[in-house]
C-alpha cells in the first residue's frame, strides 16, 4: 500500500512535469512574452518600464538556451524561461498577475475560501440529491417514477447552464425573493443566504447527468447475484438498498466524485461570476477577460495538480471502499 502510494505519487509528479511542459509550450512558446508585456505596460510606456515589467514578471530571459552564458556553462540552460518556469511552479512561486501586478498566490488563497464555500455544499448536496434520486429510481425501476425521472434527467442535461443561471436568478431572486440575487459574505452565519441560490441552481443543472449515471450504477448493482442472496436471507428492500447495493455502488460513484474534487477548488466559473462570489472561478473569468496569462497559467496548473491529487485519492479511496482492489 505504501509502496503503491509512493509510486502513484511519483507518477503524479512526472505528470505534473508534463503539465508544466504543456503550459510552457502554451504560455511561453505560443504566446509571446513580449506581447504580454506590451499589453500590460501599455503602448506609451518607455523601454525602461517595459524591461522592468518583464523582469518583475519573469519574462525577461531567453526561452530555452541562454546564449549570454558560455557554451559549457550550466547557467546556459538554467538561466532561461524554461528552467524558471519549472522552478517557480514547482516551488509554488506563482509571481505576479500580468494584469495588475498583484501576487497570484495571495489571490488564490483568498479565492479558495469563497470557492470552497460554494462548491463544497454544491458538491455534497448534489451528491446527496443525486444518490437519493438514483436510489429512488433504482427502487422504483420500470415504473412511471423511473421513466419520468429519466426523461427529466435527459431534459435537464440538454439545457445550457447559462440558462439555468439566468432563469434561476430571475425566478427565485427577483420574482420570489427568497434569497439575495447575488453577493457573498465570508461570515459563515450569513453566507448561507448567498450560497443557497447558486447551490440550488448548481444542483439542478448537474442533477440530470448525475442521476443518470448513478441510476445506471445502481441498476447494475441491483441485478447482481449478491443482492438476491441478501433477499434470500430475508433482508427488506431498504436494507438491501442501503446496506448492500449502496456500498457496492460507492465504488463507481467514487471515481466520478473524487475526480470532481479539483473543481471544488477551481470553482464554478459561471456560478461565481453571476453570483458575485469572489472565488477562483471568478478569478479565472477575470483572467480571461483581462488577458492575464500568468493567473490563467497558475489556475490551469493548480487545477491539474488537484486533479492529479484527486486521482491518487480516487485510487486510495478505492481500497477503502472496495476490499477487492489491492494496491500494489
Amino acid at each position: 500500500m505504501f509502496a503503491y502510494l509512493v509510486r502513484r505519487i511519483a507518477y503524479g509528479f512526472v505528470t505534473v512535469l508534463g503539465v508544466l511542459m504543456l503550459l510552457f509550450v502554451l504560455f511561453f512558446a505560443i504566446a509571446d512574452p513580449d506581447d504580454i508585456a506590451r499589453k500590460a505596460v501599455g503602448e506609451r510606456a518607455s523601454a525602461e518600464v517595459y524591461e522592468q515589467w518583464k523582469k518583475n514578471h519573469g519574462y525577461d530571459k531567453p526561452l530555452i538556451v541562454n546564449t549570454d552564458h558560455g557554451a559549457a556553462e550550466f547557467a546556459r540552460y538554467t538561466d532561461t524561461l524554461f528552467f524558471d518556469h519549472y522552478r517557480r511552479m514547482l516551488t509554488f512561486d506563482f509571481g505576479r498577475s500580468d494584469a495588475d501586478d498583484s501576487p497570484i498566490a495571495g489571490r488564490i488563497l483568498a479565492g479558495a475560501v469563497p470557492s470552497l464555500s460554494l462548491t463544497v455544499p454544491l458538491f455534497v448536496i448534489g451528491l446527496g440529491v443525486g444518490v437519493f434520486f438514483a436510489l429512488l429510481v433504482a427502487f422504483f425501476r420500470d415504473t412511471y417514477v423511473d421513466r419520468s425521472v429519466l426523461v427529466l434527467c435527459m431534459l435537464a442535461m440538454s439545457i445550457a447552464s447559462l440558462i439555468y443561471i439566468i432563469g434561476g436568478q430571475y425566478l427565485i431572486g427577483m420574482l420570489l425573493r427568497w434569497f439575495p440575487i447575488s453577493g457573498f459574505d465570508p461570515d459563515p452565519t450569513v453566507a448561507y443566504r448567498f450560497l443557497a441560490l447558486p447551490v440550488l441552481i448548481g444542483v439542478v443543472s448537474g442533477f440530470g447527468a448525475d442521476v443518470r449515471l448513478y441510476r445506471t450504477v445502481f441498476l447494475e448493482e441491483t441485478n447482481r447475484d449478491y443482492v438476491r442472496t441478501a433477499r434470500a436471507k430475508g433482508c427488506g428492500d431498504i436494507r438491501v438498498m442501503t446496506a448492500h447495493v449502496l456500498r457496492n455502488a460507492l465504488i463507481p460513484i467514487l471515481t466520478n466524485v473524487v475526480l470532481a474534487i479539483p473543481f471544488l477548488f477551481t470553482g464554478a466559473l459561471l456560478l461565481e461570476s453571476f453570483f458575485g462570489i469572489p472565488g477562483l472561478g471568478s478569478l479565472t473569468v477575470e483572467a480571461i477577460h483581462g488577458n492575464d496569462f500568468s493567473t490563467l497559467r497558475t489556475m490551469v496548473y493548480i487545477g491539474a495538480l488537484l486533479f492529479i491529487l484527486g486521482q491518487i485519492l480516487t485510487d486510495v479511496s478505492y481500497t477503502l471502499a472496495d476490499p477487492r482492489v489491492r494496491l500494489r
Partner: protein
Amino acid sequence: MSKPLLEMQNVSVTFPSGAGRVAVVDEISFSLDEGEVLALVGESGCGKTMAALALMRLIPKPGRAEKTSRITFDGKDVMAASVDDMRALRGYDLSMIFQDPMTCLNPVVRVGDQVVEAIRLHESVSYGAARKRTIELFERVGIPDAEQRFSTYPHLLSGGLKQRVMISMAVATKPRLLIADEPTTALDVTVQAQILELLRELQRDLGTTILLITHDFAVVNELADRVAVMYAGKMVEKGTRYELLKMPRHPYTEGLLGAIPHAAQRGHELNEIEGVVPPPALWPAGCRFTNRCPKAFEPCEGTLPPRIETSGTGVAWCHALAKASGR
C-alpha cells in the same frame, strides 16, 4: 407421514418476450417430505433455478410466478403471504445456496458479517453472540482458521471456502428447507467431494429437508432420495434415485444418462441426443422433447404428454410410454 413439508402445484414462471409471456417453468408440481432430499435435474436453462426462486418469491423483475401456482410450505400459502411474512420466512425456514458462490457473496462486506446478518435478521441476538455462532458454524462446515476467516473478504477465499460460507449462511438459522442450487458445479472435484460430504452430514445431523438442484447425475446419486427431471420448463419424470438412474423411463432421461461418458463406453460412440434445447420462446407446443426425441411419433407434437405412473414411486410424462403401457 402426514402432510409434506413443501408442496408445489402447477407452478409456472413466465417472462415477457416478443409475443406475450413465455412460461420458462410450466405447471410443474412436486412435493417434499420433512427430512427428504429431492433432486431437481435438467440441462442448463430448463428452469430449475426459476422453480426454486418461485418458491422463495425472488423471481427477477420482468418475470413472475403465475396466479395458478400453488405453493404450500408447512401449511402456509407462500403465494399469498405478505411481503413481511415472506421476509420472515426467507432465510429462517427457507434458505437457499445459490449457484455461483463467486458472485453471490457481497464483495465489500466481510464474510463473517454476512453470516451474522443472516442470523440477526431473524433472531434478536447480540452481535457478539451472532459472531460466536458464526465462528462455530464456520468450524462446523470445515473452514480452517474460522476466527480469522470471519473478517476476510470474499475475494480472498477460494471457491470451496466461499461455498462453505454460503452454506453456513444458509444453515445458520437451522432452516427447515434448504434449497441448494448447483452447490458444487463451480468447484474442483476434490472439493466437491468435501462439500457433498458436508451436505450429507448437515442433512443427517439437522434433519434438514433439501431441494437439490443440479445437472450432474453423479451428484444426484450422491445425495438425493428422490429425483425430478425437468426438460424445457416441464417436468418429464420423477422417481426415486435408484429407479431413475437404473431404469429411466422417459426418453430424455435415458438420453441424458446415455450421454454421460464413462469408462464402459470407451471406444463406442456416445449416445448423443440429437439437436439442442431451443430457446424458451420456441419450445414446442406438445411434448417439448418432441423434436429431439428418438421415439417421437405423431401425437407428441400437438398434445401434452400424459402422466404415466411408471412404478409406485415413479411418474413420467410421455406419449411413447403411454403407448407402450397401452393407454
